[in-house]
């Protein structure tokens, strides 16, 4: 294999960075009123002062809630090595109360090197948990409960939530309950008893601003000056990155991306895709990489289907569209053929095929799911007489035809008229 080229090394380095949530979210959390610092402040004061707290992290998927929480927990474990233990539950796995209590008991046993018996009943588990909470409270050890997919715990009788939050109301236990949910109204799903015991601290994870994202982009992709890269390469790479960020076309690409999905995770996916397309010979990122990444992220399958159609199939699609424009919302193969003949007669196009060839083209279109039967009822009729409808919109058809390799110009004219 030999030594890695600088390009390969840089690719590995960047890809490694993109897959490491703590590297990504640390600069985003640097400011003092970010969610990271507020969360860390509250949890650390709960630990040092020994008071109980509960809070909820809300935000769309991929906005970094679990990552920021992991950052905070990691920092706290370093800061207070012996006084923190973490129990993690997931609403998708442990929404059943029995299961959840068993899991908590198991994790507590593992933390404290006790033996866990699978035969323990629900009562045994809950008594064990209460006893452990009391023991940890006496030893000034805080237990942090992390409840992922919090809204799934709010189904059913909410016994787990009630017991946890009730345990936190007593002086003997020392615990922090952190719920993570993507539903904004997660606390409205709670029963009134549980909601009363929940201290209404909510942290909203909103998408970062454009400046933060630009800063993040540069931070992720800049190569460090040392660490074994040839220095000329490093400066060329970083300059290219800087040029890209000030390029208006690149800004347009980012704008199209963020108009659909502005979470941090989708941004990371986009960068990962673009970086993987890097040209390994030159070892530098270019604008084309990012364009290709955008189109691979925002795929339009129907468009690609249209792009792969034959010219006859395009004719049929245009005929159907024209019928729709003429307010004839229900049509079948026969009416499409009529329109096709009409076009041929008026414009004298060269592509005029017989009916059975057209029928075959129709079948192809239906297999590609570009058109389909309008209703499921007329099964007895043959395919020619059943009503059809288009499954793509006019703009998709338009775009597909424009990017088609050999679409005749007359078709575009016919579509537009």
């Amino acid at each position, binding site marked *: 294999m030999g030594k890695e080229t600088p390009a390969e090394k840089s690719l590995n380095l960047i890809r490694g960075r993109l897959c490491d949530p703590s590297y990504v979210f640390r600069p985003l959390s640097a400011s003092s009123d970010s969610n990271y610092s507020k969360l860390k402040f509250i949890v650390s004061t709960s630990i040092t002062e020994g008071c109980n707290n509960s809070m909820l992290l809300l935000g769309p998927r991929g906005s970094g809630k679990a990552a920021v929480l992991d950052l905070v927990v990691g920092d706290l474990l370093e800061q207070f090595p012996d006084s923190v233990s973490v129990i993690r539950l997931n609403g998708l796995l442990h929404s059943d109360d029995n299961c959840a209590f068993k899991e908590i008991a198991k994790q507590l046993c593992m933390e404290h090197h006790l033996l866990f018996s699978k035969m323990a009943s629900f009562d045994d588990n809950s008594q064990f948990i209460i006893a452990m909470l009391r023991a940890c409270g006496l030893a000034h050890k805080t237990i942090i409960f992390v409840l992922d997919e919090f809204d799934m715990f709010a189904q059913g009788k909410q016994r787990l939530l009630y017991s946890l939050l009730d345990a936190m109301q007593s002086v003997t236990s020392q615990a922090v309950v952190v719920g993570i949910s993507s539903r904004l109204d997660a606390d409205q799903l709670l029963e009134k008893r549980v909601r009363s015991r929940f201290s*209404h601290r909510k942290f909203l994870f909103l998408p970062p601003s454009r400046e933060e994202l630009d800063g993040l982009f540069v931070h992720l992709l800049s190569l460090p000056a040392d660490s074994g890269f040839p220095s000329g390469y490093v400066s060329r790479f970083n300059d290219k990155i800087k040029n890209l960020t000030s390029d208006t076309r690149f800004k347009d690409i980012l704008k199209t991306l963020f108009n659909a999905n502005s979470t941090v995770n989708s941004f990371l996916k986009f960068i990962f895709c673009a970086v993987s397309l890097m040209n390994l010979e030159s070892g530098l990122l270019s604008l084309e990489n990012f364009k290709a990444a955008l189109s691979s992220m925002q795929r339009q399958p129907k468009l690609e289907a249209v792009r792969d159609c034959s010219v006859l199939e395009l004719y049929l699609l245009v005929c159907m569209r024209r019928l729709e424009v003429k307010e004839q919302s229900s049509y079948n193969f026969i009416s499409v053929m009529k329109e096709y003949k009409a076009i041929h007669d008026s414009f004298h196009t060269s592509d005029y095929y017989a009916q059975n060839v057209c029928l075959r083209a129709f079948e192809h279109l239906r297999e590609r799911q570009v058109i389909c039967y309008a209703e499921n009822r007329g099964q007895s009729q043959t395919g020619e007489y059943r009503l059809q409808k288009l499954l793509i919109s006019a703009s998709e058809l338009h775009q597909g035809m424009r990017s088609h390799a050999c679409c005749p110009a007359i078709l575009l004219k016919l579509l537009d008229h």
Partner: protein
Amino acid sequence: MPAIAGPSSSPQKHVVGSRSESIGGVRSAEVNTSRKRKLRSDSAAEVSATVVLPVNSISTPMKWKSPRRCAVSIPKTSDEEIKEDSNEKLENPVISVCLEVKSKWNPKDDEQMKAVKEALHVSKAPSTVVCREDEQRRVFEFVKGCMEQKKAGSLYICGCPGTGKSLSMEKVRLQAEEWAKQAGLHCPETVSVNCTSLTKSTDIFSKILGNYESGKKANGSFSPLQQLQRLFSQKQQQSRSKMMLIIADEMDYLITRDRGVLHELFMLTTLPFSRCILIGVANAIDLADRFLPKLKSLNCKPLVVTFRAYSKDQILRILQERLVALPFVAFQSNALEICARKVSAASGDMRKALCVCRSALEILEIEVRGSIDQEPKGPVPECQVVKMDHMIAALSKTFKSPIVDTIQSLPQHQQIIVCSAAKAFRGSKKDRTIAELNKLYLEICKSSMITPAGITEFSNMCTVLNDQGILKLSHARDDKLKRVSLRVDEADITFALKEIRFFRNCLL
């Protein structure tokens, strides 16, 4: 002491005096004296703790103002009064405490911050339960009556969450035990069960039995309920005539479809030789009527004591009661008042009020100390108590729904989808398919020359909005046939998007 007596006679000026307006003149004197006493008693301890004393004692004389000049608005008076208190008694070690009041919010003073937070924590039960004396007295009289006559009885306590029911039950239990000791009766055995911890509702009987028959093993052939019934139907010997106090918390978890368990539980008190005093606690006011109709016919309906939601005055009083034990003033009185007002208007839930106060404390703490890694932003202000603006910020954090902020920060296409959903569901139709919503979406995009997203991207965005709780998607085999409905109020959407002219016109 002239300095302290002075303020109390002029109620407008002193913070403690302002409390007197709401409580009553007599009380203010008590509070003053108790504060004074605390100051004196704590002074010895505080002196040793104050390292910052010399610095502050030098700074205060310059800010000293005569008491006569203190007729200014309330926010200033607290500190001024404290300063003049301290200055009147420059020699007295009490000063150290008063000066500590000012330096309380310095980063060095963790102890005081911790003390305030602890005083306001939900888990800390206050030594005296205020504002529930009436209800407690009724319950205690009932329990006393039962114990004196050696008869069984049942009581049902209802009220919203956070109104002090479980807390009062604990106090009543202690009171009953004390009274039993004084009156020379046997101390009642207590079984306190939280019904959420029962796997099956019939487990409650085995819990009661376990307590009663401690030492004897349960007879295998009879269920715990039957054993209890047998026990209570036979005459007991004199030596075993201990009363049993059963407190069943969150009793509505015992409601089964045939209401059997609940009935049997209350019927236990009607058996001839029953010795149990049953107190059930739940939230529903009409639980006894709705679920226990049979008891009425047997003329043994339980006594009902309702714990009403706290009013503004009650909340204010409870908060002040908790804070009065501290040797310093941590909250401005109008901050407490606005908290009490808002919480009583919303739900009357004491836990929420305590939570809001702690939140306001944290806001102040961050302002003064900076958060855990950073230094405080901007100059640290002089007088540092929790003021109105801290409390207002804490209230808005607690009561505000995150919907408006989220809608405002959605990406553009998702905002258009939300907008088209608001338009679509304006009339009577409450749900549509994704395909129909897509049509509306395309119309809006066309009218504003925005390139619309394809149908795959569109249904992905609808799924994202569903995850966030803004839309509701049903399940269907085909993506396009899923039915969409709106979960958010249209008024919220209009409010959130009103800044953007395009959406404003759209939603007209």
